[in-house]
């Protein structure tokens, strides 16, 4: 494929790259590959998220009594197991970064003013960072048998008070 980066039209640039009299102005070495990795990340995380999210939905909504079974004891029972802790942690990070990057693209598409784009993205990154922090802390610091809790609400494996 002939490279469309070639241009014979001389546009003055602060830093012209030229090879054989042909200028390559759009791919300066200062550019990084961030966008390419973001693009790749959307695809790789997407494939992993299919497994993680479908598994999550199946276990929480389809098995047993479905949504009716979800309460403190149910969550405590799941997170007492490092398998589900790890599952939820990976799902949280993959999905939050995927979603944040997706919304970043949407903001870039529709917010045309530089300042609007800047503030929307600042808000987005702050919100995402906060949610990631809270979610991660909850998974790691959660105790299924909090002291002094009503014994009828905690998982059945908790020692009787």
């Amino acid at each position, binding site marked *: *494929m002939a490279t469309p980066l070639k241009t014979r039209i001389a546009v003055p640039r602060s830093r012209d*790259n030229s090879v054989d009299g042909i200028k390559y102005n759009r791919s300066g070495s200062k550019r990084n590959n961030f966008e390419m990795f973001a*693009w790749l990340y959307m695809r790789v995380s997407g494939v992993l998220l299919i497994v993680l999210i479908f598994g999550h939905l199946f276990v929480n909504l389809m098995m047993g009594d479905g*949504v009716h079974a979800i309460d403190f004891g149910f969550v*405590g029972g799941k997170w007492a197991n490092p398998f589900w802790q790890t599952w939820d942690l990976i799902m949280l990070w993959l999905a939050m970064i995927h*979603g944040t990057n*997706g919304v970043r693209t*949407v903001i870039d598409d529709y917010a045309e003013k530089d300042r609007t784009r800047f503030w929307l993205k600042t808000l987005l990154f702050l919100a995402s960072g906060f949610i990631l922090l809270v979610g991660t802390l*909850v998974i790691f610091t*959660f105790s299924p048998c909090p002291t002094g809790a009503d014994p009828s609400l905690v998982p059945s494996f908790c020692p009787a008070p």
Partner: protein
Amino acid sequence: MTPGPARSAQWQCIRGPLAGRKTDAAALRLMKQGGYSVPNTSKGTLYRGRQGMWSWVAHRVTGIAIFFFLLVHVLDTALVRVSPEAYNHVIATYKNPIMGLGEAGLVAAIVYHAFNGLRIILIDFWKNGAKNQKAMLWGVLILWVIAVVPFLVRHLAIVFGGH
């Protein structure tokens, strides 16, 4: 990057229905295979008009909806750190029929986004992906029905069956 033939994966559109996508490699492949309709006709191209564009609009809308639900969902789950009572109280709202319908819609959105996401990945990475994008969209819709209908039957039975 040293000057040389462009790696097509690095092309990114910044405006229009193709925005954010780097599928020009796929579009070019399609053009070479002669399966590409000429722009400016009502037939549209891969992402403009018709199925290509509407599947993209739906992908975008579902993606944004899922993202905002996820923000709320992490916060409601965080209530397990407050107290069993606080968590149970808020989760109880997820069990009423109105919310049950909301959950059904959310799952339907996630399943569409997931399967259409696979279609996008195939368009980008599979050499015949662009040529088969329309057929793959039918595949997405068929898989969607196959996954969502049994889900709805079971979930709505749970939600409306009462306990």
